[in-house]
């Protein structure tokens, strides 16, 4: 029967949170709008054409013809340069792929056994897929024209004249939207969870807690179910935000999803318990709301949600170090941008500090919270 009560209270909590429009707007709404604004306003990769680097080490008629054909392709923007120039450009994120035509390409082509070296940017699978498809089609066309030329001459057509040697190059090109997204996830978790204290104080003030006290529902079940409901809501919102960033702006979660969900869960619980502390020390709902807002705004800007705080003035450094959101944002960035998983020491440090915050806040709030 207690499971039934817990479950009912959990679903009621989810329903109530779903219908709380103010909460949805301040958490998911704010984060979504930020991502859309920054994503569309400041896109650096707006070009729909693939930046293709071409290195001609052969300088024969064949390669010139090939390059001319490539330039005619409107889906490609062709840059020519030396191998070192173009591969550097690829590393810097200015090229989607680089094709190298080696020294004897023309001759080998005439013999029917030519190879092309292609370098792809593997850190962006979508870009890589586009580049791959483009290069494949170029080579297929080349092979086809070669075959038709051969059969026209009455000879036996080779299956493929040009083969590709592909090499992936890992490029870490971080766009602003990539950097912003984990920060927005962290901020969303803060807004979604910090106000739980105000909610409970409001329930106490309005006599809702008293009415519940007259039922067999245990206080533990009440708190536990509401924590779980908030957690469910936070994670759902976070995933929605990430989905939008991934679909609209091709942001990628490079690291493990398990680590991401674990970090989001721990972050939510930590922020929830801080919310409880606020509720424990506020007498009225409006005071609790005010305190939550007072804490949220500086935390939003000083913990690296919107912009890096590496160059902040020295006197702010202790404040930044004291904010739990700083560590959550850092852990999220490690996972989403840098590909960390749960074994990464960088992530460990952040998670440990979040766990410490969680413990302290939990102890404090369970002691101090007044239920009546």
């Amino acid at each position, binding site marked *: 029967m207690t499971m039934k009560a817990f479950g009912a*209270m959990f679903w009621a909590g989810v329903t109530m949170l779903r219908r709380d429009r103010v909460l949805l707007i301040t958490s998911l709404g704010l984060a979504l709008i930020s991502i859309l604004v920054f994503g569309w306003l400041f896109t650096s990769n707006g070009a729909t054409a693939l930046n293709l680097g071409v290195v001609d080490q052969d300088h024969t008629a064949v390669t010139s013809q090939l390059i001319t054909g490539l330039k005619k392709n409107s889906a490609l923007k062709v840059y020519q340069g030396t191998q070192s120039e173009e591969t550097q450009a690829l590393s810097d994120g200015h090229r989607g792929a680089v094709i190298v035509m080696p020294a004897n390409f023309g001759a080998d082509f005439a013999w029917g056994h030519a190879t092309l070296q292609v370098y792809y940017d593997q850190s962006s699978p979508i870009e890589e897929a586009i580049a791959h498809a483009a290069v494949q089609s170029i080579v297929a066309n080349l092979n086809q024209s070669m075959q038709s030329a051969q059969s026209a001459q009455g000879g036996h057509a080779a299956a493929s004249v040009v083969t590709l040697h592909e090499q992936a190059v890992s490029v870490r090109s971080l766009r602003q939207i990539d950097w912003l997204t984990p920060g927005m996830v962290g901020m969303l978790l803060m807004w979604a969870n910090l106000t739980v204290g105000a909610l409970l104080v409001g329930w106490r003030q309005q*006599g809702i807690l008293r009415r519940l006290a007259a039922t067999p529902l245990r206080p533990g079940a009440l708190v536990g179910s509401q924590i779980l409901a908030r957690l469910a809501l936070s994670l759902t919102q976070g995933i929605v935000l990430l989905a939008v960033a991934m679909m609209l702006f091709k942001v990628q979660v490079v690291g493990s999803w398990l680590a991401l969900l674990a970090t989001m869960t721990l972050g939510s619980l930590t922020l929830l318990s801080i919310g409880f502390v606020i509720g424990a020390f506020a007498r009225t709902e409006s005071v609790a709301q005010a305190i939550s807002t007072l804490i949220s705004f500086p935390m939003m800007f000083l913990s690296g949600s919107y912009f890096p705080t590496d160059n902040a003035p020295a006197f702010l450094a202790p404040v930044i170090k004291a904010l739990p959101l700083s560590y959550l944002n850092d852990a999220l960035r490690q996972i989403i941008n840098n590909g960390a998983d749960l074994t990464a020491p960088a992530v460990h440090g952040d998670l440990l500090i979040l766990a410490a915050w969680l413990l302290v806040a939990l102890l404090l709030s369970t002691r101090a919270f007044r239920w009546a």
Partner: protein
Amino acid sequence: MASTANVLHTAQATPEAHQTDEIDQAHQAHQARVSVRHLTKRYGRFTAVNDVSFEIRRGEIFGILGPNGAGKTTTLEILEGIRTADGGEAFVDGLNVRRNRRAVQRRIGVQLQATTLFPELTVRETLRLFGAFYPHALSPEELLREVALEDKARAFPQNLSGGQRQRLALALALVNDPTLVFLDEPTTGLDPQSRHMLWDTVLRLRERGKTIVLTTHFMDEAQTLCDHIAILDSGAIIAQDTPTGLIGMLGASAAIECELRAGNATPNEANIAGHLAAIRTLPAVTDAREGAAHALIYTDNVEQTLVALFQFASQRGLTIDHLQTHAPTLEDVFLKLTGRGLRE
């Protein structure tokens, strides 16, 4: 034979009864559903409930009547398990409320003085939620039918009128189909029609065999509904009996109210107090007191007293105005016991 005896034994012994606490003697002896002994509750220097004792019988409507601030709500909340007493004990169905809080709460229904509900849940969702707290619950539809709120199932609490919210609070009190229901000032703030609807519902509940405990400061409510009444004032019980018994305390069959004026003077200037002593000696008068600007004369023979009163007035050159008689009420009882009205 032995097996049926075993079955009976295990059927009667509830897990709670096995705990080491006293089973109320009165419960066994008088079949009292609720037994309160020397209940006390203090807030600092202020004593809200002062050595309160009473018993409530199975199937009756028991009223706790008293002015605002008398300690009615505090007493009820102790019985409901949401407040702990500083002294004394309370038993519900033989269970000590302090030690078996959850077991008691499973079998009672509670309507608080002001029920605020989750603003983001509809009426039906709220009823279903509270139902899930109990082993067995009535369906939201049944409950809404009981309190005539069927068409409000999808409404949110903010969109209900005051009377409708009270009815919803009552539905919540009945969600686990309890046989013992506590109602704290159930008609305060209601219009007359809603009040009478609620009275009908309470009487209907008693007909179904439920025991009802209600608090009120309305004497007509107490008189109409209750089988037994405890009058509470400043935390202490000053009288306990059936309504008839309490009114019988006055020894009067009627109360006469009138203004006495000396010639053109205002009733106040007539100095009623000065005449009270004499009025008390009039035939069949059991008591006489001064009201706001009138005299209250209790008598057990209204005809005799009236005749004597007219003679008295003309003798002293007083005019009688706004003469009324009424059957004595609990208001009169309270006035006699405390010198104050229930509503002051």
